[in-house]
């Protein structure tokens, strides 16, 4: 077994193990962290396949950004684990059926008859000067420029959708904070008004009572 094979089996083994842990572990935050390990080891496998750019982008985008989003969503959902475990036995047959159908479809499309050295041939290994990034980039920006611009449209739709779904205007009562500028600029006549009132003389009740009592 060559050194490359050893590295491949290490990455592939970690990847499969982490994927298995990700779907079996109970705590959704831990599941997200196992998914991070899956992504990182999958990036290692991609690097071995000499697609360096895709491997590094997998780490940059998926591990760096998408997993943050996953953790946010997982935390925001406020999941009650006891409720999630309910009805597992009830839905298990349906889930198994769906899994079987999906597996069958994938098997039909990418089954073992499409792979093997007689079908694909040995992968060509390249020298140290080979840049996979260039190999990807040249067709991406010329031959597939239309799809590339469509990607920009998709990102634009993503921006608009995220803002439309989550942005809400908050009223001035939602957050109370000091406007120091206004506080400094305020003058006494803005706050305090002197009101001139005609003096009111109340009838002297107490002296009357005394007089009445004295008469008795």
């Amino acid at each position: 077994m060559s050194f490359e094979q050893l590295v491949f089996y290490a990455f592939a083994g970690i990847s499969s193990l982490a994927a298995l842990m990700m779907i079996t572990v109970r705590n959704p935050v831990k599941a997200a962290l196992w998914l991070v390990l899956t992504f990182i080891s999958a990036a290692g496998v991609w690097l071995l396949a000499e697609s360096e750019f895709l491997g590094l982008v997998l780490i940059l985008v998926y591990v760096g950004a998408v997993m943050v989003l996953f953790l946010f969503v997982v935390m925001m959902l406020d999941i009650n684990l006891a409720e999630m475990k309910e009805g597992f036995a009830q839905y298990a047959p349906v889930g198994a059926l769906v899994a079987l159908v999906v597996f069958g479809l994938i098997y039909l499309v990418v089954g073992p008859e499409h792979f093997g050295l007689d079908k694909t041939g040995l992968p060509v290994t390249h020298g140290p000067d080979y840049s996979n990034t260039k190999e990807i980039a040249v067709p991406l920006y010329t031959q597939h420029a239309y799809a590339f611009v469509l990607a920009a449209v998709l990102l634009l739709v993503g921006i608009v959708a995220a803002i439309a779904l989550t942005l809400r205007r908050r009223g001035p009562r939602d957050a109370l904070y000091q406007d120091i500028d206004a506080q400094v600029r305020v003058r006494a006549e803005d706050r305090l008004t002197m009101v001139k009132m005609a003096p009111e003389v109340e009838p002297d009740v107490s002296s009357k009572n005394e007089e009445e009592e004295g008469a008795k």
Partner: protein
Amino acid sequence: MLENYLPILVFVVLGILFGVGPIVVGYLLGPQKPDDEKLSPYECGFEAFEDARMKFDVRFYLVAILFIIFDLEIAFLFPWAVVLDEIGTFGLVSMAVFLALLVVGFIYEWRKGALEWE
């Protein structure tokens, strides 16, 4: 090509060893006296009243998703910069269209106030 990545593999292996090694050594050499109290949450003498997980503002999510979108934009810029002298004017124009579309999105989010935190 792969020989260029040998130093990175060495770093990865060393990183794993540095991370996992102390835990394993601590587990093997340290005394182990398990106790229920050691695992119980300590909150000034009381058991925890409620779950640590709580709902938080959806604006954090908005910031994260906007970050991802512009992160992807940057990811597209790297290979473009590598081959800029090979793809010529057409490549330049295609990137200009790409960036123009995203600038529309950027202006939209700016004007909408999605970048404001108040």
